[in-house]
């Protein structure tokens, strides 16, 4: 089943994450997406959106950013676009998940989850915008090494 892009506008407020989750859920239902993909998409999008909300804008003003979701026979694609200062979340070093609990930084896990839950994640600075594109192949489950 193909779905042409649907776009949700969000403001940089934490409460918006609730609206995002409801919207993604509706998209997943329309597409008849099953677990584990459904939850994986939810997690990846919450991580990306909460990064934009918490860290994207430093001026204390209200900003709008968008999440677009589309699907074709092979792939579900999500594109998150904001006009915050240039920031590539993928440039951050991988978190060391082998560290013992006491030494484990409590942040940094979000983008790690995004990288590993999606098949492809790409960042691009387009003019004054940050564009993060997430792709997840339908029907595949990336193998996870026991960690």
């Amino acid at each position, binding site marked *: 089943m193909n779905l042409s892009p649907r776009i949700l506008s969000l403001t940089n407020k934490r409460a918006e994450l609730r609206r995002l989750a409801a919207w993604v859920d509706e998209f997943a239902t329309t597409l008849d997406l099953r677990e584990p993909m459904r939850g994986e998409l939810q*997690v990846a999008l919450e991580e990306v959106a909460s990064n934009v909300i918490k860290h994207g804008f430093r001026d204390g003003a209200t900003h709008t950013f968008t999440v677009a979701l589309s699907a074709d026979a092979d792939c579900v694609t999500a594109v998150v676009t904001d006009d915050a200062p240039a920031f590539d979340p993928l440039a951050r070093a991988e978190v060391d998940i082998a560290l013992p609990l006491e030494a484990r930084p409590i942040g940094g896990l979000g983008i790690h989850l995004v990288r590993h839950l999606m098949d492809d994640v790409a960042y691009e600075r387009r003019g004054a915008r940050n564009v993060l594109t997430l792709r997840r192949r339908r029907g595949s489950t990336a193998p996870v090494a026991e960690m």
Partner: protein
Amino acid sequence: MEITQSQTGSWVVLALAGNLDTTGSEELEAVLLPLVNGSPVALDFSGVGYVTSAGFRTLMIALKQQTASQGTLVLGGMSAPVRRFFDIAGLGRVFKIVDDLTTVVSAG
């Protein structure tokens, strides 16, 4: 997130229903953190759909607090997709995760 609290012997059991996302983990944090003070706590994940980094953050704070009080925190009843989130996060071995909580809890 719907959180149902019960007591079995010395164990406090929280049955979670919903998602451990930003919203859900704030709700869990308010209930869980006051409980992890040394007495054994079990979290029943059978009603949980997914866990985000906000959820892991809450669970790690609870585990650190419980470990500091020499208490036990056990997680159980996870679906395969939820278990997979723990493995991807590298937390599958950090938390004590069991298949069946009832045997652990009823053993004392």
